[in-house]
């Protein structure tokens, strides 16, 4: 369970992006956050990720107050954030190397002892295969397509077996076909691993496909954000259903009014 309680936040020399904002995300939820640009969707994601600190208020994950990036929270950004000088393999194993660097300190890495190198290699191998990028393992990011880079970034995050996955417009720079394929992969993975996920998107269709719940953020200050249940998550074939269309129109309407 993620609890955001009375959080306020502003970037330096700018008006409040959030003031006394609260939100609860139950474990296993797949939450899509949608809203116009500048409404603070990404900022909310970074706050939950512990990458930036709230000015006031509190964020707890499973009852533990958030102080810094949590070892079991994964983050995938639109710009993959791969090391340009490292191969696909070396990028995918980076998180494990960082854990080994600190040792199981419970701060930067989970308190459990680190796995043997064999187990770690197997995990990297598994996720590269699963994301169909293992045949590119010796390539550098600049030699890959956008989709392949994003697959590498997702593999790098999943290698650390996160229980919470945060994604900031992860697929918006990709072709439609590859986007759909990766969306399906993420839905499968989430069901399989029981992860909680939060995905920021500006695409209503994507929000409806990914999110079992959809948070519509309309303006800055987060005051009038609205949580909507979505029964259609993961069901691509039902786009023609009247209820689906109705929900889609409702979302579109809410977003249009806010801009």
């Amino acid at each position, binding site marked *: 369970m993620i609890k955001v309680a009375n959080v306020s936040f502003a970037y330096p020399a700018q008006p409040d992006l959030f003031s006394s904002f609260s939100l609860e995300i139950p474990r296993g939820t797949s939450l899509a956050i949608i809203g116009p640009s500048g409404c603070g969707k990404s900022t909310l994601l970074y706050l939950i990720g512990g990458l930036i600190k709230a000015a006031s208020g509190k964020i707890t994950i499973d009852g533990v107050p958030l102080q810094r990036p949590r070892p079991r929270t994964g983050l995938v950004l639109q710009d993959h954030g791969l090391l*340009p000088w490292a191969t696909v393999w070396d990028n995918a194993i980076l998180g494990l190397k960082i854990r080994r660097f600190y040792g199981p300190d419970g701060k930067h890495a989970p308190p459990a002892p680190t796995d043997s190198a064999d187990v770690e290699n197997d995990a990297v191998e598994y996720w590269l295969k699963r994301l169909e990028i293992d045949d590119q393992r010796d390539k550098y990011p600049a030699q890959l397509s956008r989709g392949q880079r994003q697959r590498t970034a997702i593999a790098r995050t999943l290698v650390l077996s996160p229980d919470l996955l945060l994604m900031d417009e992860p697929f918006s720079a990709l072709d439609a076909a590859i986007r759909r394929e990766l969306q399906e992969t993420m839905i499968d993975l989430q069901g399989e691993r029981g992860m909680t996920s939060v995905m920021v998107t500006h695409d209503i269709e994507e929000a409806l496909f990914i999110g079992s719940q959809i948070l519509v953020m309309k303006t800055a200050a987060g005051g009038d954000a609205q949580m909507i249940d979505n029964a259609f998550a993961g069901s691509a074939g039902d786009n023609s259903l009247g209820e689906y269309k109705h929900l889609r129109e409702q979302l579109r309407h809410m977003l249009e009014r806010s801009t």
Partner: protein
Amino acid sequence: MKRGLNLTSGTLGMAMLLVGWQVLAWVVRRPILPSPVEVFPVFVKLLPGELGLHFAASAGRVLVSILLAVATAAPLGLVLGQSRRLDRVFDPLIAVTYPIPKIIFLPVIYVLMGITDLSKIFLITLIIFFQILVVVRDEAAKLHSELILSVRSLGAGRRALFRFVYLPASIPSVLTALRVSTGTAVAVLFIAEQSLTVYGLGYYIVIETYQVLRYPEMYAGIMAMSLLGLILYVTISHLERKTSPHRTEMADQ
């Protein structure tokens, strides 16, 4: 086509240089241009002795300067590249001082720092320092915030960021800066060594041989100084290729 130095191209280039030198010696036919056939035995004879000492003195000064420059400029470049505020403060100063030929401060440095090796080393360090500072700063500024955020989300704190991001990002740029600045550094060393010392190839070439018309020995000195430049260049570009395989792979495609 692949450019640069490898064993084949190095041998070929050396052969062309020697042939050209020989032809020129035949054409000019004056003592100031002895043939390589005459100079080579002198070089081989002198290198284990006197010439070797001069070579070691020059090489030592360059190496110490490189170490000092890397140790000071690389961290400073990283800080400036990552902090927009500091960069804004110092950028005008760097922009104005960077193009100044540092050798013009030679007399000032001699007076302030004395006539020891320290002043020569300081001058060369100054030249390399600015090159590294600028290149590392620009490279660090290219590390965009999303990369840093992603790596932090993998658990990296300050130490791991340094180890896994800043360090590997700056080593190749330090080497690039060294590759382009050692040529200038050796040239400045040549001038600085012409006075206030009795060891160094600059002293050997100008004072010990040129001024007393020992031309073959002078050429042995010139060869030694060329060798110093060549060894530095080849070593640095080799390290550069080794530490940034992603750039090499790109260039090969």
